[in-house]
């Protein structure tokens, strides 16, 4: 019966983010938080595994104090307990810092048979977390997983790669990242939302992880984030007959690289 840990991130909902047309800066003042999309797949996959095989699912997150809003949401999706580490500096944390903090927390919480992450987060989409966690914890990593099955107690992971699929088995604990196509996360019912209040959540203090300032210093600095706005060409083909206009349109599209 596996003991599973899911790592997730609380991110801003991109639908609420507005782009300032003057300088393409992002206005996030009205953006609500959400569990990162592929992390929802990770949570769902963990819960599905436990429904099939028995065992337990815990969840873990590292984020700003706003991440506290995620706890009931996560618990309503099936995990038995959630651990969280809050740190205002998490906003600027890179993949190195996040993986270091999560690994530190995992060492403190205890061992797991499987640690599952989403393929990448909805905001930065670095796709590094599973690999970094595995390296830090000295565990094998199985990334880009599109299916997890069980065969006589052995878990089989189907990995979707650029030009093929690969089936892997792992003996012993492993870190896994899952693709969005692995499942359709169920929407929690009302009773699951209410039931979340009865499940435990535990805050782990960053200071208790014994990490050095250097380990908590991002190695990648995000200098600025700009929005992308598709602007209209506002080109009107009005000269000549229909055939001539069509030819002009085709030529224009070809020039843009569309063929």
């Amino acid at each position, binding site marked *: 019966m596996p003991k599973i840990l899911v790592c997730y991130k609380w991110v801003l909902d991109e639908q609420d983010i507005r782009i300032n047309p003057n300088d393409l800066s992002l206005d996030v003042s009205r953006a609500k938080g959400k569990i990162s999309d592929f992390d929802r797949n990770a949570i769902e996959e963990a819960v599905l595994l436990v429904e099939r095989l028995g065992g337990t699912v815990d969840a873990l997150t590292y984020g700003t104090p706003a991440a506290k*809003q995620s706890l*009931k*949401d996560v618990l*309503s999706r099936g995990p038995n307990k959630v651990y969280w580490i809050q740190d205002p500096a998490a906003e600027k944390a890179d993949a190195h810092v996040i993986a270091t903090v999560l690994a530190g927390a995992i060492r403190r919480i205890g061992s797991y048979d499987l640690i599952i992450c989403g393929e990448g987060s909805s905001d930065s989409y670095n796709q590094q977390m599973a690999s970094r966690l595995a390296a830090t914890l000295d565990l094998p990593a199985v990334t880009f997983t599109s299916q997890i099955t069980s065969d006589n107690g052995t878990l089989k992971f189907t990995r979707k790669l650029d030009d093929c699929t690969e089936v892997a088995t792992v003996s012993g604990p492993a870190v896994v990242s899952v693709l969005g196509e692995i499942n359709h996360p169920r*929407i*929690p*019912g*009302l*009773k699951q*939302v*209410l039931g*979340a*209040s009865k499940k435990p959540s535990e805050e782990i203090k960053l200071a208790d992880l014994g990490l050095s300032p250097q380990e908590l210093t991002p190695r990648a600095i995000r200098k600025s984030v700009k929005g992308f706005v598709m602007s*209209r060409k*506002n080109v009107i083909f009005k000269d000549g007959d229909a055939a001539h206009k069509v030819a002009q349109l085709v030529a224009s599209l070809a020039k843009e690289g569309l063929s």
Partner: protein
Amino acid sequence: MSYLLTEDQQLIQKNARDFAKQYLEPMAVQLDKTGEFPAEVVKKLASHDFLGWFLPAEFGGAEVGYVSYALGVEELSRASAAVASIVVNHSSAAYAINRWGTAEQKKKYLPALAKGEKLGAVAMSEPGPSVGQGPEAVIATQQDGGYVLNGCKCYVANAGVADLYVVFGCTDPAAGAKSLTAFLVSAKAAGLEVGAKKSTMGLRARPTADVVFRNVAAEVLGTVNAGTPIAAELLAALAVAEAAQTVGVVGFAVEHAAKYAQQRVQFGRPISAFQAIQTILAEVSTNCYVARLAVYDAAALIEQGKPFTTEAAMVKLFAQRLGINSLVETLQIEGGYGYSEEMFMAKLFRDVSGTTILESPLEFPEQVIAASIA
């Protein structure tokens, strides 16, 4: 509006919105075209506890309270007011039993209603001029230690798919409203006949039909001849839920129109840059925001067990004015595009009137409000 909502309520609101987006939005236009009862969607609603919102946990309900219920109704209505209306009318019947039923009636009926194994409906309107009047008035006669009903109820929502009806009938036509009594009637009862499904202007996927009673066995809900205050409170609770529907429809309509206005370019600019369009969007959004606050205030009163009929009437009155006027304005923004039956706006336009005029005449709210203050 978030500051008024608890964490649980915000999560419930979000989940209801996700449900509506995933299950209702893709089929809403098609459901509206065919008028087909969405049986599979109703099962999904049940599996998410969306048919037992405020019912006690001891009967299998979610016991989340009326505010959460109103939040959920608003979110479902954004995608399909018809499906939300099925939920609202079912929940109305459940509300009546939970509120006025005996311990035995609650134990007998609420678990199946809470889990969505059975659907409920409320039959109130009659073709006649007033309560107990006219040849088709529903009259309750004592027989064999119980009651039988004879008459006709018209425009019954969920008729034909409901398993249980809450029906209002008079025990003494001469006494009129003073003898009004609430009853529970099984859909399988001998002598109950559901008429042909009516083709309605909007809310098409929600079945509406007349129900005829010919010596149909019925059990009293509440007390004999105490049906008028029951009907008044039931209508008031229903008014709040329907106002939540109106807010959902209008909220979606104004967002839809705003997105369109940003994309539609005329004279070199998006039409959202024109003052006339901005005025419409501002007024509709503001009215919707105010209506939403009023709905949740009234819902909170219901949840707290406080008197709420005056507030419910105010909410109904405001929603009636908000609904139709807002859709006229937002349809104006979308023009020919919105007028097309393939687009959402046409459906919203037809649905919104169903959320404001059904179950009580337009004059009802003013009478209740005026009576409470003068």
